[in-house]
């Protein structure tokens, strides 16, 4: 890029960026909550266990060390029974996983996990004061100014995606990068996934390309028997995954 192009583009970019930064979802004319219903697609065969998503989430959302808004699990299944997988998640997969020598038998795969932003969320059901809720656009959020830190929601989540923030002493979890998706950006984890294993999906937008994928592939949610209305869909999820 030459100097002249740069001088023209710079202020334009700056103005565009400021407009992006200033968005307020429920009062912005650009973003109407009722137009959206957010979910995510995890394409299991694409995940290489690099841990980029875990690091990116921690950087974007100031996640404290030792706590995880998202994490990656590595499964090793070396028999036909689906009840005996060996699973590891060293520091949530933040620094990746130890390499496996070629001689090891059995199948391996990686499963990224996060809050499933359940439509019939059991965590919001049990909150005694209304500090956690499902937003009108389908994201389960925690109000850090209202939460008592009783941890009832942490107990009620079947997926283990919640924790009590060690400093703020309130419940915390993945917000589906609400501050990003309401500005037309994608989540930090999806942005930084090098293989496209994680993709944001707007279930209410018929033009969203992931709709076609969901309709033509074998997808399922975690723990479907819990009937939580989970909105994170896993492509080609193995039966041994818990």
């Amino acid at each position: 890029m030459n100097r002249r192009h740069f001088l023209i583009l710079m202020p334009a970019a700056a103005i565009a960026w400021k407009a992006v930064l200033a968005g307020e979802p429920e009062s912005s004319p650009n973003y109407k909550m009722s137009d959206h219903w957010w979910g995510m697609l995890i394409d299991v065969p694409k995940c290489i266990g690099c841990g980029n998503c875990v690091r990116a989430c921690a950087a974007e959302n100031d996640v404290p060390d030792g706590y995880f808004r998202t994490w990656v699990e590595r499964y090793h299944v070396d028999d036909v029974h689906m009840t005996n997988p060996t699973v590891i998640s060293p520091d949530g997969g933040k620094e990746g996983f130890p390499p496996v020598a070629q001689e090891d038998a059995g199948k391996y795969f990686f499963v990224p996990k996060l809050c499933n932003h359940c439509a019939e969320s059991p965590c919001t059901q049990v909150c005694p004061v209304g500090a956690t809720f499902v937003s009108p656009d389908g994201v389960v959020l925690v109000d850090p100014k209202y939460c008592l830190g009783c941890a009832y929601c942490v107990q009620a989540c079947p997926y283990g995606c919640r924790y009590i923030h060690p400093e703020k002493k309130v419940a915390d979890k993945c917000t589906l990068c609400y501050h990003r998706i309401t500005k037309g950006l994608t989540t930090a984890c999806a942005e930084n996934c090098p293989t496209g294993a994680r993709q944001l999906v707007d279930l209410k937008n018929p033009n969203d390309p992931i709709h076609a994928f969901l309709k033509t592939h074998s997808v399922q949610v975690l723990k479907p028997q819990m009937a939580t209305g989970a909105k994170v869909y896993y492509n080609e999820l193995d039966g041994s995954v818990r």
Partner: protein
Amino acid sequence: MNGVEGFMYPNEIALHWSILIVLYPYITGLVAGAFILASLERVFRVEAVKPTYRLALLTALAFLLDAPLPLQLHLGHPERSPEMYFTPHATSAMAMFGYVYLWYLMAVLVFEIWLDYRREIVLWSQETKGLLRIVYKIMSLGSTNVSDRALHIDEKVGWVVTLIGIPSAFLLHGYVGFIFGSIKANPWWSSPLMPVVFIFSAMVSGVAAVLLLYMAMTKLRKQPIDMRCVDTVAMYMFYIFIIDFSLEMLDLVHRIYEADESFRSLDFMVHTRLFVSQIVLQILVGTLVPLVLLFITQVWKRSLTEIVRKRIYVICGSLIMISVFAMRWNVVIGGQLFSKSFLGYTTYKMALATREGLLAAIGLTILPFLFLWVLVKLLPPWPTEKAAAVSGD
């Protein structure tokens, strides 16, 4: 790796509900149980247990005053707990706590104690001097009407309050059971039996507590223990315990029989991490031994001397109180020791001197006895020289 065996979801490794959350259902259970013993006399006219009536009410009140404290120490933001009164979430069993607690404290327990003691309160407000006089005057709410008719009305209203108090006591402790029993995410907790088991074990622990307190305090007052009373209390304790044990065995047998996906993981947990607290303390030493001993006293009552029966009651009462505490431990802590992936286990690292540590728990267990001491001084459960002089006995 930090006490983890197998695989735990990363956020599950540290326990979120500590020993204080074990203590809370134990204490509200004692409240409910003590109240049920009081209602035996008041509503069901079991005359034999009358010597424990007032003590049971005061015990219930002492423990009820202590009950919110473990919760306050546990909350990340205790200063926000009034939110449960202002914006209770109707779908949350925990939101019920504020209102049920307040209802039970004021409209049941305090009301009933006030009605039962009112005559003495009015007389003491006239007889005593200084600060104590002011306290009694406030408690009398400025009314000095102790005519026969007024006392008769108190009697009738008190009966209704106790009657309402029975389901209220069940609600006060049953909702705690529901808090656990309604969590589908946790198969160790999720069960329709949970509120029922909690209520029955609460009753047994509360009755045992009042039995022990009655025997101890009567001994301290150098008075003879009313054997007809303790024999009857022990009898009810025995029958309630049989029901409680049956319910817990039903839960166990049902789990073993159905052997759903959680069973293997939970079974392993019970045999390893919960072996001492569940199999040894709760079941063998805490349930089977008292049941056998109490059975013996029920069947061979005549051939056992007073001393032997008293010793048995003290042993059984103590073992029962330990057993019910162990049950709360096994439910609360046990429910967090296994992974919801059913692939691993963690360890509870109980702190010593922190806000939710062992010392705090011990302190909160001792505190209700201090409350009880104050209440017994203020509202003596048995005729003392003061009451005797006042009533002209």
